[in-house]
């Protein structure tokens, strides 16, 4: 964490990220990957914004938005972007290997074990409980991400949060069309009402 006097939160985060070494990136994303049962996003926000202070709330949301607009898994993309910002391609490589390396090995073991002991009811019950708790974590992450936007840019942001939610979550439109329609309109709104 930066203690530079008078620095804005954005500058402090940039300074903290610039000091992150390749092993730091590897370790941070390793922990995220290993924590992310039922989705890594809640752990990514917690680690990148709250724990390491490498991104501000606004940076995190904007980076996630960039990652969502490109193909590939959002969190894998995020590891590439954050690692690259800190340490170039080496940082990206360290972050992405940290993120998927350990889960990769665990899955191989689980795949092997499933072939032998598959479908134990006790295991299934535990998994169902974890899935419910993991869904709750994503609800909390959504609320934490929405809060600053709704507070600071109510008129320009809230309609697009609601439309994207309804389009993909309720009506189940294909994600790419929702982004293609909403993003230009939302960018136009942001252009007219800069934060």
């Amino acid at each position, binding site marked *: 964490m930066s203690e530079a006097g008078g620095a804005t939160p954005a500058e402090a985060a940039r300074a903290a990220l610039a000091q992150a070494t390749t092993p730091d990136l590897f370790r941070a994303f390793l922990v995220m990957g290993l924590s992310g049962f039922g989705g890594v996003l809640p*752990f990514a926000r917690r680690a990148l914004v709250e724990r390491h202070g490498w991104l501000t709330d606004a940076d995190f949301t904007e980076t996630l938005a960039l990652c*969502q607009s490109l193909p590939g898994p959002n969190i894998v993309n995020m590891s590439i972007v954050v690692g690259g910002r800190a340490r170039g391609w080496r940082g990206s490589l360290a972050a992405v290997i940290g*993120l*998927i390396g350990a889960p990769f090995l665990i899955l191989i073991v689980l795949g092997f074990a499933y072939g032998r002991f598959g479908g134990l009811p006790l295991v299934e019950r535990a998994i169902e409980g974890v*899935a419910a708790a993991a869904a709750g974590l994503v609800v909390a992450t959504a609320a934490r991400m929405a809060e600053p936007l709704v507070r600071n840019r109510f008129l320009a942001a809230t309609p697009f949060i609601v439309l994207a939610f309804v389009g993909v*979550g309720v009506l189940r439109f294909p994600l790419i069309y929702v982004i293609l329609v909403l993003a230009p309109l939302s960018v136009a709104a*942001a252009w007219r009402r800069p934060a």
Partner: protein
Amino acid sequence: MKPVWSTLGALALQFAILSLVAFGGANAVVPEMHRQSVAVHHWMTDRDFAALFAISQAAPGPNVLISTLIGWKVAGLAGAIVATAAMCGPSCVLVFWVAKAWDRYSHTRWRAAVGAGISPVAVGLVCASALVLVRAADVSWRFALVSAASAAVAYFTKLNPLWCLAGGALLGLSGLLMAAP
């Protein structure tokens, strides 16, 4: 299982293409993975696929690792490595270069507007994921209570969210979440 070069090649090609069309992450291309693995290449049965999907969801890490399990099932360790690398590689290279260009223009007005503009859409999409996950996981009010408690703890406290997941696992194991017969 001995990996066959033609099988590894087919895996690499299939996942490299999926990588570049996986807008919204791996879950967006799961139906296509299913079609390719079961109907086109006959690598596995429908049941096998469902089981692999469930394991990938239950294990830690990004959901993209369903590709690891498919590769493993098809061609052992070599298959797992090839499928994972092919699923992550192309999109990662693309994202790396786009992010570089993105950061280069970080002080321009249009870049600020694009960033501020796509952010609400991203938040809306996370809200949508939350809804989809809640609907899938909360098959009864007991599960809904677990989700609500977990959301409240994560939102209002700084507690490590792993405690929420551990609590969910214990409640599941205890049988308290099962409906009365």
